[in-house]
C-alpha cells in the first residue's frame, strides 16, 4: 500500500464529488429560473418542511432559551450584571441559536427524508421513468424542494426566535424573580434590525443547504437499500457541517467589530 496513492485517490474522489455537487447545484439553479414551476409540489414540500417541523423546532427553542437564561444569570451574577441578561438572551437567540438550532433540527428531519425519498426513486428507476415521460427530474423533484426550503426556513426561525426568547422570559420571571415588563423592555431595546435580518438570511441559506444536500445525495444514490441508507446519513452529516460553516461565514461577514 502506497501512502501517496491513497492520498491521491482520496483527493481525486473529493474533487470529483465537489465537481458533481457544483454541477448539480448549477443545474438546479438553472431550472429554478426556467418555467414551468410545479406549484403543487412546492406547496406539498412547504407542508413537509415547515408545518411538520414546527413542534420539534418550537420545543428545541423553548428548552434552549430557558437553559440559556439560567446559565447567563448564574454567570453574570458574579459581576452584578443580571440586568444585562435579557439583552444577552435575545441577541444570542436571534443571532445564533435560533437559526442554527432550528436549521440543524430541520436538517435532521428533512434532509434525511428527502435523500431517502429521492434515493428510493433513483434505485427503483422512478427517476428514469420521469425522464421517459418528458418530465425533468430537476424541475419536478429538486426545484420544488429548494424553493420550499428557502421560503419556509425563515418562517420557522422567526417562530424559533420568539419561542426561544419566551423560554428565557419564563425562567427569568418565574424562577429568578425578574419583572416581566422591564425584562421585555430590555429585550426590545437591545434587538436591532441587523440581528433580525441576519437571522432570516441565515435561515434562507440553511433552507437551501438542507434541501440541496437531501436532493443531491438522494439523486446520486446507488446500490439498493444500503445505498439509500448511506445517502440518508451523508445528507444529514453534510447538511450539518455546511450549516455550521455557512453560519460562521455569515456571522463573520455581518458582525465585524
Amino acid at each position, binding site marked *: 500500500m502506497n501512502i501517496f496513492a491513497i492520498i491521491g485517490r482520496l483527493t481525486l474522489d473529493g474533487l470529483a464529488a465537489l465537481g458533481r455537487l457544483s454541477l448539480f447545484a448549477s443545474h438546479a439553479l438553472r431550472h429554478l429560473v426556467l418555467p414551468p414551476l410545479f406549484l403543487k409540489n412546492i406547496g406539498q414540500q412547504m407542508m413537509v418542511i415547515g408545518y411538520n417541523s414546527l413542534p420539534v423546532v418550537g420545543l428545541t427553542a423553548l428548552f434552549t432559551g430557558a437553559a440559556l437564561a439560567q446559565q447567563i444569570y448564574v454567570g453574570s451574577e458574579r459581576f452584578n450584571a443580571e440586568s444585562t441578561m435579557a439583552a444577552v438572551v435575545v441577541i444570542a437567540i436571534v443571532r445564533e441559536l435560533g437559526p442554527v438550532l432550528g436549521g440543524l433540527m430541520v436538517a435532521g428531519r428533512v434532509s434525511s427524508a428527502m435523500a431517502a425519498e429521492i434515493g*428510493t*426513486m433513483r434505485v*427503483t*428507476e*422512478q427517476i*428514469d*421513468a*420521469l*425522464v*421517459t*415521460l*418528458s*418530465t*425533468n427530474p430537476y424541475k*419536478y423533484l429538486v426545484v420544488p424542494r429548494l424553493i420550499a426550503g428557502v421560503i419556509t426556513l425563515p418562517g420557522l426561525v422567526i417562530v424559533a426566535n420568539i419561542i426561544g426568547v419566551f423560554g428565557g422570559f419564563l425562567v427569568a420571571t418565574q424562577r429568578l424573580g425578574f419583572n416581566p415588563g422591564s425584562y421585555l423592555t430590555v429585550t426590545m431595546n437591545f434587538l436591532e434590525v441587523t440581528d433580525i435580518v441576519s437571522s432570516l438570511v441565515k435561515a434562507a441559506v440553511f433552507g437551501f443547504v438542507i434541501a440541496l444536500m437531501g436532493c443531491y445525495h438522494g439523486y446520486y444514490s446507488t446500490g439498493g437499500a444500503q445505498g439509500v441508507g448511506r445517502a440518508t446519513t451523508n445528507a444529514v452529516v453534510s447538511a450539518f457541517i455546511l450549516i455550521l460553516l455557512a453560519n460562521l461565514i455569515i456571522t463573520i461577514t455581518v458582525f465585524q467589530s
Partner: protein
Amino acid sequence: MSTAPKIELSGVKKRFGPKIVLDGLDLSVAKGESLVVIGGSGTGKSVLLKCIIGLLTPDEGTIRIDGQDVLTRSQKDRQKQMSKFGMLFQGAALFDSLKVWENVAFGLIKAQGMGRAQAKSIALEKLKRVGLQSDVADLHPDELSGGMKKRVGLARAIASEPEIIFFDEPTTGLDPIMADVINDLIVECVRDLGATTVTITHDMASARKIADNLGMLYDGKIIWHGSKADIDQSGNAYVDQFIHGRAEGPIKMALRSH
C-alpha cells in the same frame, strides 16, 4: 434504401467500470416493426434499451432515430425527442407517491398539459386494455400485486400513444392467460398505432407471438438477427441453445462455485 430505419445503432459500446456490457453492437429496426430481443440474464438487454432512449450514454458508436444522430445532439434536444418514446421498465418503476390512474396519466398531464378530467378518462381506458378495472385506479402502487404493477407500467407506456415503445419483459410475473392478453395488446399497438416496438423477453411463446424479427444479444453484440420464421432454422448454436433452454451448449452461464 428509400426510407431510413426508425432506429439504427452502429458500433455501440457501453461499459461500467471495467465491465464491458455492449461491445460494438449493430442493430436496426424499421418503422412499424416489432423486434424482440432475447438473450441471457445480465447480457445487457435493459442497458441496450436505456442507451437508445437516452437514459444512458454509450461510450462509443452512433444511434440514429429517424435518421438523425441523437448522441451528438444537446441534452435539450434529446429531451424533446423523448415524447416519441414510451417505455415499460423491467421493475415497472411506478411513482409510489401517486395513484394508479395518476401514474398512467402522468405524461398526458405533465408533458402534454392535458386537463385532469380528460387525462383520467384516457387513463381508465388504457387500464381497461391491460385488464384492470376502474376500482384499481384510485389505489397506490404499493397496494398492487407484482403483475398488476407491470400492467399499470404498460398502460403508462402506451398512454400517450408514442411512435416508439420499449417493453422490458412485459409478461414476466403474469399468469399465462394474462400474458397472452398482453401479447395481443402489444401486437395491437404495432398494428393500430403503427408504433415501432422493441420487446425484451425470456418467454419464447410470447416472442413468437409478437415478433416480426428477433435478435439475440450475446457477449455485447447481436449475434443473430432474422425473421420469426427463421428462428428455428437459424443454424446458430447459441440461438438453438437459448430457444430450447438447454444447459449444454456454447453459452456458458457464469456460475461460481464458492
